[in-house]
Structure formats: structure tokens, C-alpha cells
């Protein structure tokens, strides 16, 4: 079938087109009181992006996100590596890490608000809480999954302990660590937006929350679209880098002539 070939040739594009078609159909079913069709949403978003005030909200969210991400990555790496070096501590703390992953962190939100008050610090804290756990978990797993043979081989080459960590352990663990950072990226974004939904007077999350209250379908849809686009693009880019790390040099090798 023709459609099959198109799908195989351009999977991502086909997927996006399918989504747009479904979106349009749902709009026809549900009506303009609940949804905006794709074209109108893009138009409205474009208009928003031309206002300085919208960019003010974007930069607010963006700043909080970047800081939260930095904290997540640094704290997550530090935790994961520290536990990765020490078998006993790793065993002791692993269930705590896993528990931290499966707990609905939004339940902690009031505590964060009480500690940090309303504003940027609360948002950053909430984003960081969401992001640090996967980074730590993946980094720990990465250290544990380094093939023993690589460490054995390196030990026959007179490396200092520090050199061993820097030139063998870390490069070997990097693909899995990067996967953790990729997931931490997405979750930090989600956490930051969630944080903004209550504890803030600015930012995309705040916009979303007010739009819900005012039943402003256009704003709801445009902001959602923006968030989805940013998250999806970032994730795809990171995913490509992830694949490149796991497969250095590609799958086939061309002999030089």
C-alpha cells in the first residue's frame, strides 16, 4: 500500500501529520468551546510570540528551568557517582532512590512552598526535585554496568585510580549517564511548569493556570502547544545524541582507499 511506504520512509513526519488530522477531527466533534483547531492555534501562538509580555513569561520559565536543570544534573551526578564508587552505600540507598522515583512529587509541593515561599526559588526547587532522581538513578546504574573486563584491562596498564575513573569509568558510563540527563531534562521541565502553576505570578505555568480559571481556550491551547513543541524537540535532539554516544562511528565502516 502506498501509505505503508510513506510511513516507512518518513516515520516522524507521518506521525505528526496523523496527529494533526486527529486533532482536527476531535475539534469538529467537540466544538470551539473546548478546543482550537491546529491552524488557529498556531496563528494565535505566533501572535503571542510577538508580544513582549509573552516573552517575559517565557524567560521566567526558562530561567527557572535552566537553574533547576543545572542543580538536577550536578546533584544527580554527584549522588550517582558517589554511590557508584561505594558498593555498600549503593545497596543501602538504592531503595530510597527508587522510592523517590515512584512517589507523586506533587504531594510535596505545599512543603516546598512553605519552605521557599512563593516565587522563583520554589519553582526551581520543584523542578530540581523532579529532575535529580532520574539522573542519580541512571548514573548509579551506569557505574554498575561498566563491563568489568574494561576495568581489568585498564588495571594492567599502570593507571592511577584517578586516571582510571577519568579515562575508563566515566567514558564507559557516559551513554547511560546521558540517558539519565535526557530524562532528567524532560522531568525538570515538567516540574518547573507544575511549580509555576501555583507558586508564581509569572511564567508559562502561571499563564496556563489563569487561562484555566478564565476558560480562555486560545491561551490554553497555544501555551500547551508551545510546551509540547519545546519538550518534543529537545527530547528528539537529546535522543539523537544519546544514540550517537551508544554507537560511535555509526554502524558501517568505509575503508579508506
Amino acid at each position: 500500500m502506498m501509505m505503508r511506504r510513506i510511513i516507512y520512509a518518513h516515520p516522524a513526519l507521518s506521525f505528526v501529520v496523523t496527529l494533526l488530522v486527529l486533532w482536527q477531527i476531535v475539534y469538529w466533534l467537540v466544538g470551539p468551546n473546548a478546543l482550537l483547531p491546529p491552524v488557529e492555534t498556531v496563528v494565535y501562538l505566533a501572535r503571542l510570540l510577538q508580544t513582549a509580555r509573552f516573552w517575559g513569561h517565557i524567560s521566567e520559565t526558562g530561567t527557572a528551568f535552566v537553574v533547576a536543570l543545572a542543580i538536577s544534573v550536578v546533584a544527580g551526578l554527584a549522588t550517582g557517582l558517589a554511590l557508584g564508587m561505594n558498593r555498600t552505600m549503593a545497596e543501602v540507598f538504592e531503595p530510597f532512590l527508587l522510592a523517590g522515583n515512584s512517589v507523586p512529587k506533587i504531594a510535596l509541593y505545599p512543603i516546598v512552598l512553605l519552605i521557599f515561599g512563593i516565587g522563583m526559588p520554589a519553582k526551581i526547587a520543584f523542578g530540581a526535585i523532579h529532575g535529580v532522581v532520574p539522573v542519580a538513578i541512571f548514573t548509579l546504574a551506569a557505574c554498575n554496568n561498566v563491563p568489568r573486563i574494561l576495568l581489568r584491562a585498564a588495571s594492567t596498564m599502570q593507571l592511577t585510580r584517578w586516571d582510571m575513573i577519568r579515562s575508563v569509568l566515566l567514558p564507559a558510563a557516559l551513554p547511560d549517564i546521558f540517558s539519565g540527563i535526557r530524562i532528567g531534562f524532560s522531568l525538570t521541565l515538567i516540574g518547573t511548569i507544575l511549580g509555576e502553576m501555583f507558586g508564581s505570578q509569572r511564567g508559562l505555568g502561571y499563564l496556563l493556570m489563569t487561562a484555566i480559571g478564565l476558560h480562555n481556550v486560545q491561551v490554553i491551547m497555544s501555551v500547551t502547544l508551545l510546551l509540547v513543541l519545546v519538550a518534543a524537540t529537545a527530547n528528539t535532539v537529546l535522543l539523537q545524541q544519546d544514540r550517537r554516544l551508544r554507537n560511535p562511528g555509526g554502524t558501517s565502516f568505509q575503508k579508506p582507499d
Partner: protein
Amino acid sequence: MRIVFYRLVAVFLPLTLLEILCREHVIKPLILPPPSRMLLGLWAVIANGAFNAAIVKTLANVGLAIVLAVVVGIAAGAAIHRSRPLRTLLEPLFSTYYAIPIYAFYPLFIVVFGLGDTPQVLIGFMLAVVSMIVSTLAGLDSVPAVLGKTARVMQLGAVETVRSVTMPYAAPYLFTGVKLAIAYAFIGVIGAEFIMSGTGLGYEIRFAYDNLDNDVMYPLILLILLIAVAVNMSLDHWDRALRSRRERG
């Protein structure tokens, strides 16, 4: 055994420290009451029964989201597994799905479905179903192709094939999928209740926060945390038990 000891220390040392700091008012009671008070409050909340309705509502919604996610997830996973074009089409979805803030769709659901239970269950379902689908696909992938052919040669019926060929391979993956679905359903439903809802534990916490009612809020938070941790730990334990039995047997 040393490990268990360290874990106990890791839990009780910070708690004791917190207790001391709270009692000495280094940490103001308006921000964080002492852990002992939180625990007593938890006991009171449970004994009181005033929040039983909320607890039941939340657990019911979570349960519904889980059941829907597992059933739809396995069915969809099986269907997608059979159709290569469908699978290729949906692949981008699976790799990007959990990066997307699903909560952003919550307002849409409220607008479409109104302020009942549906939006919460739907969010929980949406978060959980994709991990179930992905796990089902992984499980079905793990069945060696040669066994499918063997089953056909032996003329096993569909039910028998699933029972004796597919399930032994797919079962661990399905179990992982269910574990993830349960965790996500909790996160989704309680988060949605918190953001905008009139019932359920999430709402009660929000209400207590708005009214500066720490004596209710903290015990409820603690309750949710304990339920989530208990459910996930017992699932993990079960998973490990099944796995080791599989390895030995």
C-alpha cells in the same frame, strides 16, 4: 544485615535531627511541624475517618486508571505488535511521550469533560497507558520467532499459544509494565486532583494548604507518600521474588 542497619540509620537520623530542630523552633512550626506531631496527626486523621471519603475517592480513581491502562495497554500493545506500519508510525510517540508535560492537557480535559472524576482518571490513564504499551511490545518482542513457528507446526490454538509460548517470555515485561502503570497512575491522579479538583486526597491537601491547616495537610501528605512507597515496594519485592524463582526453576 549491616545494610538494613545502615538504612534504618539513614531514615532515623534525619528524622531525629528534624524533631530536635522543630522542637527548638529552629524550624518554625508554621513551616514544618515536628515529625512526631505529623505521625500523631496521621493517626488522628485515619482514626477520625473524616477523610475516608477522600481516600476512597482517590484510591478508586487510581484503581480505575490502572485497570484501564493495563487492559487498553496490553490490547493496544498486542495490536501494534502485529502491524509493522502502525508500529513504525507510533515509534516517535513512544520515544517522546514521557518528555511531554501531560498535565498541560488537563485543562483541555476539564473543558471537554467537566469537573467530575473523568479528567483525573483520564490523566492517570494517559500517563500509565504508554508505559504499558511499551512494556507489552518489549515482552512480545522477546518471544523468539522460532517458537512462534514451532507453535504453528504443532497446531496449537491461539489461546494455547499465548499460554505456553508467549506468556513465559512476555510475563516479566508485562509485570514491569504494570508496576510502572501503577506508579504513573498514582502520580497522574493525585497530581490532577491537586491542580484542580473538588474531591480526593490531592484536593484535600490543597484545601488544607490554602487554609494554612498544617495539622491536616502534613498528615495527608505523609499518607500519600506512605501509600505510594508501600505499594511500590511490595510490587518490587514481588517482582524480585518472581524473578529469582524464574532463575532457579
